[in-house]
């Protein structure tokens, strides 16, 4: 291949997959499935909230101020983070792909810059508040449960909180890479 024309002619010779039969119908079906999945996600989130509220009243958390504050400190950041995540996913899906690429990329850049606030301020804050709430519950657990089960709660919570922290860090690194590549390709 000596010139660009050679490259272009080679490009035109490439084997292109055939148009899938019933492809358009498959797309319409996928859209229906996406809508069903969205509904399921909202139902699951609402159910989680209902279960948390039922648990709150079931253990009569309102009788003890410490337990009430502790559960509130655990539930509130969780709820805020879930709502933010749902809004974020919606915002990403609503990026207007019909725009000219330059404007679309600006939209993507704005999205990732907004996500930085979530990652570097809200997430650590939510994580910290959640941990404080959980720690406040520990003296109650110690008196209520057996020594073995109390130890299990401590160890399993350290493991799951560490795993969650790692997951969040990995996600932040990934999104920061995307942001960097978007900034680098700016003209």
């Amino acid at each position, binding site marked *: *291949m*000596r*010139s*660009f024309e050679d*490259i*272009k002619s*080679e*490009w035109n*010779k*490439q084997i*292109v*997959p055939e*148009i*899938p039969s019933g*492809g*358009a119908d*498959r*797309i*319409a079906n*996928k*859209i229906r499935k*996406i809508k069903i999945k969205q509904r399921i996600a909202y139902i699951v989130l609402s159910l989680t909230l209902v279960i948390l509220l039922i648990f709150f009243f079931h253990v009569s958390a309102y009788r003890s101020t410490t337990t009430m504050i502790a559960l509130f400190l655990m539930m509130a950041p969780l709820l805020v983070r879930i709502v933010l995540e749902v809004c974020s996913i919606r915002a990403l899906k609503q*990026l207007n*792909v*019909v*725009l*000219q*690429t*330059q*404007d*679309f*990329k600006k939209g*993507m850049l704005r999205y990732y810059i907004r996500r930085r606030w979530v990652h570097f301020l809200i997430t650590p804050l939510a994580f910290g508040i959640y941990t404080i709430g959980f720690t406040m519950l520990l003296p109650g657990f110690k008196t209520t449960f057996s020594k073995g089960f109390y130890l299990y709660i401590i160890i399993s919570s350290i493991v799951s909180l560490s795993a969650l922290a790692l997951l969040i860090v990995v996600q932040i690194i*990934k999104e920061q890479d*995307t942001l960097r*590549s978007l900034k*680098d*390709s700016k*003209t």
Partner: protein
Amino acid sequence: MIWNGCWAKFHNNSHKIIEELEFQFETIYQENYQKVIRLCLGYVNGHQALAEDLAQEVFLKVWQHLPNFRKEAHISTWIYRITVNTCLLELRKKKFNKGQEVLDNVTSDTDGEPLDHEERMRKMYNCINKLSKENRSIILLELEGIPQKEIAAITGVSHEAIRVRVHRIKNNLTKCVQHEVI
């Protein structure tokens, strides 16, 4: 009675609108699938399964935005805009990095032998893959024979800037293809 009549009319009208949209979508799909998949192949180094996944995402967006298509832009410009933007958006996902593996797995056993079409394509994809995402979009559109004025309308870069950039990318790509050892 009046309510029933209104409801039946509304139901018939919406049914008719959906049918028209489905017909319009089917036509767009048949007429543009090959154009879309060729462009997608360029973003994933010729990995067919990944390109098919990308094309499916593109047509999902086409379906979602079809009711708002105002015919201010030419349909092909509109489709290409959706294709380029969707590919940029989807390429962030890990599964689309597999396209890179296709190139990484290529062995260097050509030893001066004339290259066959497949090897020449790999070489070309490797060079395209070295470009920035934006330059990749521009050269893929150029390879597809899209007029530079339309490339400008798709990317939002001025016609003059596209002309200069296409010239520069063409030179770089040609040099890369000539000297690239796979």
